[in-house]
């Protein structure tokens, strides 16, 4: 990759921001592109490492599924779970329209 060619383009920043559900102003997009480009440039040093045949580490301790009997247990009351919601309605979280009509 040539030094002039950006590692990340404005279009990619917009695409990733959409994936991340993050609204960015035009000024933020440009600043983000420049900063991510610099950080990704540093991260490229990982390419120096020979990782042939090396297993990835996702977690430092072995993880196992933890099973229990499928039985009803006491849980938090609905009002406690709704207490922090910006727009609770009845026993529900109210949200704007999700599906197109």
């Amino acid at each position, binding site marked *: 990759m040539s030094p002039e060619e950006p590692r*990340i383009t404005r279009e*990619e*920043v917009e*695409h*990733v*921001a*959409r*994936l*991340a*559900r*993050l*609204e*960015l102003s035009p000024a*933020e997009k440009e600043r*983000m592109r420049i*900063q*991510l480009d*610099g*950080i*990704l440039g*540093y*991260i*490229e*040093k*990982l*390419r*120096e*490492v020979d*990782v042939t045949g*090396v*297993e*990835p*580490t*996702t*977690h*430092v*301790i072995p*993880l*196992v599924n*933890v099973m229990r009997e499928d039985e009803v247990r006491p849980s*938090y009351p609905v009002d*406690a*779970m709704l*207490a*922090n*919601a*910006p*727009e609770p309605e009845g026993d529900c*979280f109210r*949200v*704007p*329209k*999700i599906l197109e009509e």
Partner: protein
Amino acid sequence: MPAAWTSLTIHESLDALRSGAVTASALVEAYLARIAALDPTLSAFLTVTVDAARAQAAAVDERIRRGEALRPLEGMPLAVKDVLCTHGVRTTCGSKVLGNFVPPYDATAVVRLVALGAIVLGKTNMDEFAMGSSTENSGFFPTRNPWALDRVPGGSSGGSAAAVAADLAVAGLGTDTGGSVRQPAALCGVVGLRPTYGRVSRYGLIAFASSLDQIGTLTKDVHDAALLLEAIAGHDPMDSTSADQPVPDYRAALGQGARGLTLGIPDEYFVAGLDPEVEGAVRDAIAVLERLGARTRRLSLPHTDYGVAAYYIIAPAEASSNLARYDGVKYGPRAAGAKDVVTMTARTRAEGFGPEVKRRIMLGTYALSAGYYEAYYGRAQRVRTLIRRDFDRAFAEVDAIVAPTAPTPAFKLGEKTDDPLAMYLNDVFTIPQPLAGVPAISLPCGFSAAGLPIGLQLIGRPFDETTLFRVAAAYEAATDWRSRRPGLGGLS
């Protein structure tokens, strides 16, 4: 004499309480008075739980009056990083996106401390979602370093570190994902322990990077670190990653000395970029450990230099997933006026997150996105394996590793805020240990000519905090750094 009580460690305060020299209420009042006097300048706390602390102290004094046996942390006023959920007490994680979130439950670590008699004084400031090395990324205000008010306390647990350094709490809890307990401990001149991943339950710890996050302690000495770890360590059914391993009697290690242990000095931690004053203090500390009977030998951790790059893929990738839950539905403020749920979510997150959190969400989402996954995330995880193997090989030959904690003493507020990469590189010596899952402790080992504290880092085998306590306590007993107190800009 409020200043005298607040300068004590946990074990000294417990002695004073036991002998009747002080009551829990008097202790709490001394801390609250000091917070009222100093915290408007230091800004270590986001929330001070005055009434609850007073009520808990009164209950402790009542227990003592009734002649009940003192519990291991009876009446000890602690500072808790605002990343840990506290039932009925606002928990912000340093972020506006959580706003006035009031958790319906306590983190397991908090439950365990309170069950042993500890008192929560309040919640401390932090970099938003624990992303940062200076506490300047707090969504509310920066915290100042008690040793120099124009300098950062480190981060992300800068509030807890500054509070303990300035005697605003007897000890504190922090969290460490890439150095967030040890680096502020070094910069504030206190003891900071990152236990082995899995040693302490993460239940009720607001997630940043789940394969790296671990709760740690900030204390005035090594003895207190052992006391607190013993209190919070152990398996928790509410966290399947908490290890089902017995918790040793850590305090038994404190008097065992360093004689007979072999300590490794890794070449890759004494490189260009390490401040000469820091290097000098760490080399002097190594000489002290040798005089105490430890054998030392040079060794190599060859993949150290790739730690920061691997971390800044892995941690943001995990964060981008963990932080998807902040969508303006279940908690926190919601952006007004959006007609559909996608716009509402994107706008809520735009308004709620600060620049560093946005950067990491973008970086993590990018690294996980189609076409880049193997090139970035896959490769970073393979490099993580190589970093683990470096430590495995080293610990086949040495009992612990000695290194600097941070490459420089505390830097100035604003010095690195415009350069994210410069800020990231501050964690170069504290990132490999979380990637490998090994424990490490930072303790004071001297001062720069400008009077700023310097931290010594000891790194141990997984679940062998005992050896860290042994070496750290021996070094601490042979030196006198704690007798120097922060100037607090002439405020105290």
